């Protein structure tokens, strides 16, 4: 008799799924909000130098070309590793694109340089010179925010 009663009680057990579903939705929302599609142009091969003054820009740059320079002196552009000298042709294509499709002057476009902290400064300067040959005039050097440093 006792055994029968226990079995019957076990059959009627119902789990309340509500808290689990709540948590699941919370997690889905959290991951949705933290998902950042804008990082697709950031390569993990580049270890940016840190600076306590590097703060994210308040508004995004309209016309920009991102050039990433590795520690070994190669330029990562559109997923291809190029020698700095081989950058002229893609930069000219970029210029054409800005002038014809976007109807803007290349002088108003910004070149964003994401150079590795161990990259040679001379290579960075060579890349800037190549961009200048094509007609780019605005350059920004990108650094990672360093929040550890204490205020002076």
């Amino acid at each position: 008799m006792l055994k029968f009663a226990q079995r019957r009680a076990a059959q009627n057990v119902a789990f309340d799924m509500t808290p689990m579903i709540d948590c699941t939705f919370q997690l889905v929302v959290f991951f949705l909000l933290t998902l950042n599609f804008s990082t697709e142009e950031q390569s993990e091969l580049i270890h940016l130098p840190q600076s306590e003054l590097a703060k994210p820009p308040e508004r995004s740059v309209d016309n920009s070309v991102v050039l990433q320079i590795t520690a070994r002196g190669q330029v990562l552009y559109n997923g291809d590793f190029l020698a700095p000298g081989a950058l002229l042709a893609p930069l000219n294509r970029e210029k054409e694109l800005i002038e014809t499709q976007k109807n803007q002057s290349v002088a108003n476009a910004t070149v964003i340089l994401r150079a590795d902290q161990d990259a040679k400064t001379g290579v960075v300067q060579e890349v800037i010179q190549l961009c200048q040959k094509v007609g780019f005039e605005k350059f920004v050097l990108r650094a990672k925010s360093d929040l550890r440093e204490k205020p002076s």
Partner: protein
Amino acid sequence: MKIKFPDVSRVVFDMTPMIDVCFQLIIFFMLSLRLVAPEGDFNVKMPIASYSEGQAVSTAPMIPIRLRSDAAGKLVSIQMGQRPVKSFKDLRAQIREIVGAAGGPGAAAADNEVELDCDYNLHFGYVIQAITALSGYIDSQGRVVQLIEKIKFAPPRKKEG
């Protein structure tokens, strides 16, 4: 004849597919999650090889900063004009003196211009440290105090080795 209505009180939703989908979503977002530190930009100028006739040449007082490195790219010395500087902290202190003497950060920030003359092999990280020291500092209240706004590179030095 009695009409039989379905027993609505006994309708049970099967939650399993929804929970399955939610877990799939969680796994997708978890795998695509990449926590990236925020990034910021520093504006720099670099002189063009030859100035065209109509081009404006800066008349701002120029402070030359020389950064020397060894063959491996490690910083060996910092020099401001003819004066040797011990560290980037010292460089910032000297810049603060110059800016302070010229009437405080707000007034002098737009006036002075710094030219960075770096060795070819110097690691780029040191350049950013120098630019950080020259650009400003964070005061005790967490505000950014601007020092030098105009920073430019000297023409690149020849490749070493």
